[in-house]
């Protein structure tokens, strides 16, 4: 009797271990996949920017400065090494782009050009995709981390070689909204 009880207990524990391990592996891969997805969309952004710059260059000659900032930010983002540096460079690129978009509003010629509108739509979509890919990544990280931290998985997760995944944090520079000086002087 005692033998069968022990056997039953061992089988249950083993079954639980297998299910937990597979569940965590599945989530871990989803997290990695979501991270890849962010990279895919960043790459798409890098590819689109030169086209946009070429399309608006003629009409926006007086905004050389802004255009050069976009191009510079792009090349820094493309050549960035490591997650930290890449995140900073991408943040600067986002800022430069949003400034370019804002300035484009001043050029009616651009807004009536089908080509520019197409490119703008593609870039808007890419910005959204990057945002949604990050959102999915962070949601999956939250699920992965929670799953490791709840009882009774928390007793086993570290032992089986799982650890918490890092959230994608928006850089402080990107988060801060531009300061507006309203003083009258």
């Amino acid at each position, binding site marked *: 009797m005692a033998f069968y009880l022990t056997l039953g207990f061992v089988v249950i524990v083993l079954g639980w271990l297998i299910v937990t391990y597979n569940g965590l592996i599945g989530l871990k891969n989803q997290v990695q996949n*979501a991270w890849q*997805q962010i990279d895919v969309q960043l790459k798409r952004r890098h590819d689109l920017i030169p086209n946009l710059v070429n399309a608006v260059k003629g009409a926006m000659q007086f905004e050389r400065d802004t255009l050069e900032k976009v191009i510079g930010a792009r090349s820094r983002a493309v050549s960035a090494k490591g997650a930290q540096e890449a995140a900073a460079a991408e943040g600067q690129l986002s800022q430069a782009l949003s400034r370019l978009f804002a300035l484009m509003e001043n050029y009616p010629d651009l807004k009536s050009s089908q080509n520019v509108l*197409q490119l703008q*739509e593609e870039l*808007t*979509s890419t910005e*959204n995709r990057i945002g*949604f890919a990050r959102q*999915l990544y962070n949601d999956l990280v939250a699920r992965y981390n929670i799953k490791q931290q709840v009882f009774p998985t928390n007793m086993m997760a570290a032992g089986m070689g799982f650890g918490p995944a890092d959230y994608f944090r928006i850089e402080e520079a990107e988060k801060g909204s531009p300061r507006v000086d309203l003083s009258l002087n």
Partner: protein
Amino acid sequence: MRCPSCGFVQFDAPRCKQCGARVPIARPPDQPVGLAPGLSGTAPPARPLRPPQPLNLYDQQANNRRKTALVIGLFILLVLFLGYGVDRFIIGFSKGLWDVSLFEPSTPRSSRQVAFPMATVAALGVGTLTAWLGYRNGDKLVLASSRAVPLSPTDLKARQLDNVVEEMAIASGLPKPRVYVVPDPDPNAFATGRDPAHASIAVTQGLLAMMSREELQGVVAHEMSHIRNYDTRTMTVTAALLGAVLLLHDWSARTGSWRARDSGEGRAVGIGQVVLFVVWVVLVALAPLLGQLIAMSISRSREYLADASGAELTRNPLGLASALRKLRDATAPTRSISRGTASLCICDPLHHPLDDRKGFWSDLLATHPPMAERIRILEAMAYAG
């Protein structure tokens, strides 16, 4: 209140009595309807709305999932009870196949017939089979019957739709569904396909022309959520159960001889049996209506769920709220979308005049919850965070 198109003055009616145009009435307080001076005294008072419950989108989702599970459980119980009655009171009497002992307590155990719930199994089987066929090929049928054409992203708006679908696929972590356009000027959209890998989203030309990018994103997020929540599957299960209920009703109504048999052999029938029998008869008589009501209730809770999980994808409930407002004000019915597809659409393609109010009847008989209520919940979500 004045009709917006012809100026005819009338009271609380969904359509103008003179020209038939849709009259915006009983709005939630967000869009106060201007009253002609001098009429304000006689105008009906604004419908009081319940104070908004601050439910965030996760609570909303959990609520609706629970509700679906509960209602489907109820539906299954109904089918089982109806089937039990048919097996018991019709087949049991005429062929002695099902637990005769309850009516003849003296029958020895050994002489009982094999108890096999024939009718229940047959009804569920036929219902499941027809629903299964619809499930396998339903998407092709639906797309063909609405004359949907695959989207060719040539012009700007079409590119935008394609991009928005891609964005929502990324946000939900699912493969990108195929995108179709339905050549119909009335705004509507639907999702179909048996699982995320075989899913399609179709929007009408009218919707594409009418919605801003943000609103389009809300609509696509709603449809993507139908796919993510496996609503085609849920509605297939519902259709199978509804089919079984209707079959059981038909069989009972056609046989018709059970009344005579019951009274003829009435010996040693306990009061419990009589009550059971009466309840069963009432339920059989009401079965088609009851089944339809339950199916509609499931459809509505899936709509609320898709609204809430759509908000989870975009994190912007107000985009969909604004799209729903435009859909509510669209007048013509969506002709190219047939009735059977209704529960997959973003709004009822038939545009029942009941749509705008939340009342007892609109609650019971509609595939979709009232627009005002959906908008209210989405806006509450935006503030509940």
